[in-house]
């Protein structure tokens, strides 16, 4: 069995091993990585400074892979077929794959040794540490990575300068006109752009402290941090020392099958030079590097794939500005759209006969990228001016050979095959099947369009009674001011409803009007849990969960819970949400139990409702020696604010008092983690069947800002989610994802924030405890009987036995079908 050794453990190496495993290669694979951690997503590196954890960025290690982390390979012995590591050990190989990547280019100027680079987690840690004592920073390099680094410095609160050698920013992606528009955007954010400028020296004061950067014209930019992001150099030193052919300007020479001059050694990713030692090219984008990884894996498993160069098209959003470039950056003819006021620049390049699209540049609005990139080299699908103005390209029919996903090289035809032959009926299905859309996501709108065009119509009808989705019904109820189910189904539905639409409509009515869930006709809409304000269990009894906000409870109240449980013979268990669940109550016992609980000051915990459940907390700064904020106080405030709010599904929350995250806030629908400066808000987390870590929505918020943001998040979710769709799934299905969510609830791009705020104020001001209201209302109490004609007779079918000193239901297999 052949032994495959991979040197380097970045995203390309990861993709290589993953592809190898997908092809069913069972051989031994050893990956040797210099960094102390497995490969992580470098494209999303900047998000690390915003709070995304290393774990979230890290790719899972493919099964059956041996990793040697923190291991540096010092030599290749091609005779013996071994690589030697810095610790003196040797790793034998049959096939060696070099995925050594590149290193940031640091120009040889005085003081350069005091500058930072921007490539690894460790680099970012160093920058973050240095930023603590800094007020100004300079990034040398105004390309893609340079702007990324500038964004990071800005995010760390530094006044940021960008120094770029070329006359304008991002010279590889945009032309002079686009560069000017881009500069306008970036300066509007408060960054200084020094284009057409070089670096004379890094000025270093006493004890090696950086004080500034001097330009060749002698002017000085004050700065305490300098980050070089002025290009990359392939790391080819191992190959060079091992006698493999390398290019004149660096890069390990490979053929179209990614094989080096030694047939047992492959090179992939940023260290590889494709196309010969003289004219070859090194690719620094993730898309081509992934393709190289797949080609090498295919060759090693006996295939004949080859790397035919790559589309260097780019679409990205840097510092909030969309920038895109596709195809050629010149042509016989061109059409330009320029809006200096709106900061939009779009230019298409066209062949001399004005029929073929050659390429394009976009700044400020990248919508033509997704729609037009697949047409590069093909006849123009419409008049160029129309294409630039409408931009969306929604009407365009893609040819089968048009590339839809450039990161993973997937054509429109392949997506159509996935839809038609493999039955993929939604975007996640296509992602899983073809990988399209799974890396940068910019082609997801195209995938949706292909789905629609293929005639896949996902029925949004809630059930046979309503042809509308939950979000649409919500709007109908809200806009028309509908207050009853009968009114809604008569005007907008058919039949008399079912167990799907009735609770959904009940929830909508409750979210919008916040009356008692058992009031009038609404009582008939509720699921049994909401109908009896308790949770039904397998034997038809119910469980009772009093609210214990933030998990904080006095001994006296704890004793009351204990006494109630003892007096009614209930099974008692501590829940995962820091509350106490009392099991085995018969319907006729519920009011008696709640009379006692309400008297002692307890309220409904809404464990039965599609509503806020609990806001879990750690003990926080009050007691904990590590805590930086009062997590318990905030958790209680949040729980009391959102208690009783009906939503498309249950809502869970937690507050952690420091970054140790003992409250597990990131597994919640909205989770809050304290920082030294305030609170970080995470949304869309989930435990359960499909765990998901919540995404960072905003950081270092004050308590007021935090509450306002949560108000809007929750209300926007209630307004737009599907029935029984938790926030995790909702966020994943949201067009535009987290960025769009931020636009709506932070930047108010839809102009609805005032309305969302007002709805939450209404909820907070009209909340009343459902159980307190119920026990004082004889009409509502009427339903809590075992038998309508024998209210005092307990249901004789409910039988318990004892286990570990508590009751448990007797299973009755003789009556159950399954």
């Amino acid at each position, binding site marked *: 069995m052949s032994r495959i050794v991979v040197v380097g453990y970045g995203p390309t190496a990861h993709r290589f091993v993953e592809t190898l495993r997908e092809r069913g290669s069972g051989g031994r694979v050893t990956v040797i990585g210099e960094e102390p951690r497995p490969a992580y997503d470098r494209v999303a590196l900047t998000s690390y400074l915003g709070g995304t954890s290393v774990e979230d960025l890290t790719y899972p290690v493919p099964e059956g892979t041996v990793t040697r982390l923190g291991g540096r390979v010092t030599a290749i012995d091609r005779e013996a077929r071994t690589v030697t590591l810095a610790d003196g050990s040797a790793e034998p190989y049959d096939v060696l794959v070099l995925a050594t990547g590149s290193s940031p280019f640091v120009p040889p100027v005085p003081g350069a040794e005091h500058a930072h680079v921007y490539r690894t987690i460790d680099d970012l840690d160093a920058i973050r540490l240095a930023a603590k004592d800094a007020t100004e920073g300079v990034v040398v390099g105004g390309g893609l990575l340079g702007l990324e680094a500038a964004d990071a410095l800005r995010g760390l609160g530094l006044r940021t300068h960008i120094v770029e050698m070329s006359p304008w920013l991002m010279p590889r992606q945009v032309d002079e006109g686009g560069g000017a528009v881009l500069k306008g955007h970036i300066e509007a954010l408060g960054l200084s752009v020094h284009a057409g400028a070089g670096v004379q020296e890094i000025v270093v004061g006493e004890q090696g402290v950086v004080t500034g950067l001097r330009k060749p014209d002698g002017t000085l930019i004050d700065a305490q941090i300098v980050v070089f992001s002025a290009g990359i150099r392939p790391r080819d030193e191992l190959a060079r020392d091992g006698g493999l052919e390398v290019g004149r300007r660096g890069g390990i020479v490979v053929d179209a099958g990614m094989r080096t001059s030694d047939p047992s050694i492959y090179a992939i990713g940023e260290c590889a030079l494709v196309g010969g030692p003289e004219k070859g090219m090194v690719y620094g984008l993730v898309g081509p590097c992934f393709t190289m990884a797949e080609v090498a894996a295919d060759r090693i498993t006996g295939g004949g794939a080859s790397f035919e160069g790559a589309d260097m098209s780019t679409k990205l959003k840097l510092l909030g500005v969309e920038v895109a470039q596709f195809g050629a950056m010149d042509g016989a003819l061109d059409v330009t759209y320029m809006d200096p006021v709106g900061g939009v620049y779009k230019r298409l390049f066209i062949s001399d006969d004005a029929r073929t699209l050659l390429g394009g540049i976009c700044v400020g609005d990248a919508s033509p990228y997704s729609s037009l990139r697949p047409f590069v080299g093909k006849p123009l699908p419409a008049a160029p001016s129309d294409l630039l103005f409408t931009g969306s390209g929604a009407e365009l029919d893609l040819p089968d050979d048009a590339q839809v996903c450039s990161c993973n090289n997937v054509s429109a035809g392949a997506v159509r095959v996935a839809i038609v032959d493999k039955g993929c009926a939604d975007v996640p299905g296509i992602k899983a099947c073809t990988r399209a859309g799974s890396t940068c996501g910019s082609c997801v709108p195209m995938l949706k369009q292909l789905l629609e065009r293929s005639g896949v119509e996902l029925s949004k009808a809630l059930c046979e009674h309503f042809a509308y989705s939950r979000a649409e019904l919500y709007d109908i109820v809200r806009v028309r001011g509908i207050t009853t189910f009968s009114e809604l189904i008569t005007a907008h539905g058919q039949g*008399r409803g079912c167990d799907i639409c009735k609770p959904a409509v009940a929830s909508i009515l409750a979210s919008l009007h916040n009356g008692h869930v058992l009031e009038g006709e609404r009582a008939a809409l509720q699921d049994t849990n909401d109908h009896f304000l308790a949770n039904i269990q397998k*034997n038809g009894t119910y469980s009772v969960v009093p609210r214990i906000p933030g998990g904080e409870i006095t001994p006296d109240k704890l004793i009351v819970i204990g006494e109630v449980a003892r007096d009614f013979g209930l099974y008692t268990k501590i829940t995962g949400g820091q509350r106490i669940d009392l099991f085995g109550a018969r319907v006729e016992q519920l009011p008696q139990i709640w009379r006692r609980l309400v008297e002692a000051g307890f309220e409904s915990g809404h464990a039965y409702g599609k509503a806020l459940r609990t806001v879990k907390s750690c003990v926080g700064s009050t007691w904990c020696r590590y805590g930086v904020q009062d997590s318990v106080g905030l958790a209680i405030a949040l729980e009391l604010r959102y208690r009783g709010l009906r939503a498309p599904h249950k809502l869970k929350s937690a507050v952690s008092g420091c970054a140790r995250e003992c409250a597990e806030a990131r597994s919640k629908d909205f989770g809050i983690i304290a920082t030294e400066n305030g609170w970080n808000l995470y949304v869309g987390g989930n435990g359960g069947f499909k765990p998901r870590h919540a995404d960072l929505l905003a950081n270092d918020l004050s308590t007021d800002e935090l509450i306002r943001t949560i108000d809007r998040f929750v209300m926007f979710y209630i307004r737009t989610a599907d029935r029984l769709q938790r926030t995790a799934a909702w966020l994943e299905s949201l067009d535009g994802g987290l960025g769009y969510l931020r636009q709506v609830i932070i930047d108010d791009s839809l102009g609805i924030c005032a309305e969302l705020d007002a709805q939450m104020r209404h909820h907070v001001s009209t909340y009343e405890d459902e159980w307190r209201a119920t026990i004082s209302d004889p009409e509502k109490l009427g339903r809590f009987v075992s038998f309508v004609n024998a209210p005092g007779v307990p249901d004789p079918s409910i039988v318990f036995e004892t286990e570990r000193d508590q009751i448990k239901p007797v299973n009755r297999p003789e009556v159950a079908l399954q």
Partner: protein
Amino acid sequence: MSWVSVCRYQALLPERGVCALVDGRQVAVFRTYDGALHAIGNLDPFSGAHVLSRGIVGTRAGEPTVASPLHKQVFSLVSGECLDEPGVTVPVYSIRVEDGLVQVSSVRAGTEPVREPALVPMSV
């Protein structure tokens, strides 16, 4: 056929059920939106729990139904058949209104549901 009075017609909420004890049997009694009454066994054959009276009442293709509150299987209130699992049925009982009182027959029957007499007001 012996009839057992279980409650006043007006005590029944439209589209909600109650449970009655009829000769030792648990019977789920429903009043639908149009005022009609139905009675089926209260035992959910899937879970073995006596809970059908606590399910959500609705319609499927026009037929009045109740969904088990435990695992949501839907039963016809007319035939007692489970519409999600052919072959599974629950008993159907005769039901009528006499002098404003809802009466259930302890004998299982496949009769049509009884509409209340005109003298009984439609609203609760």
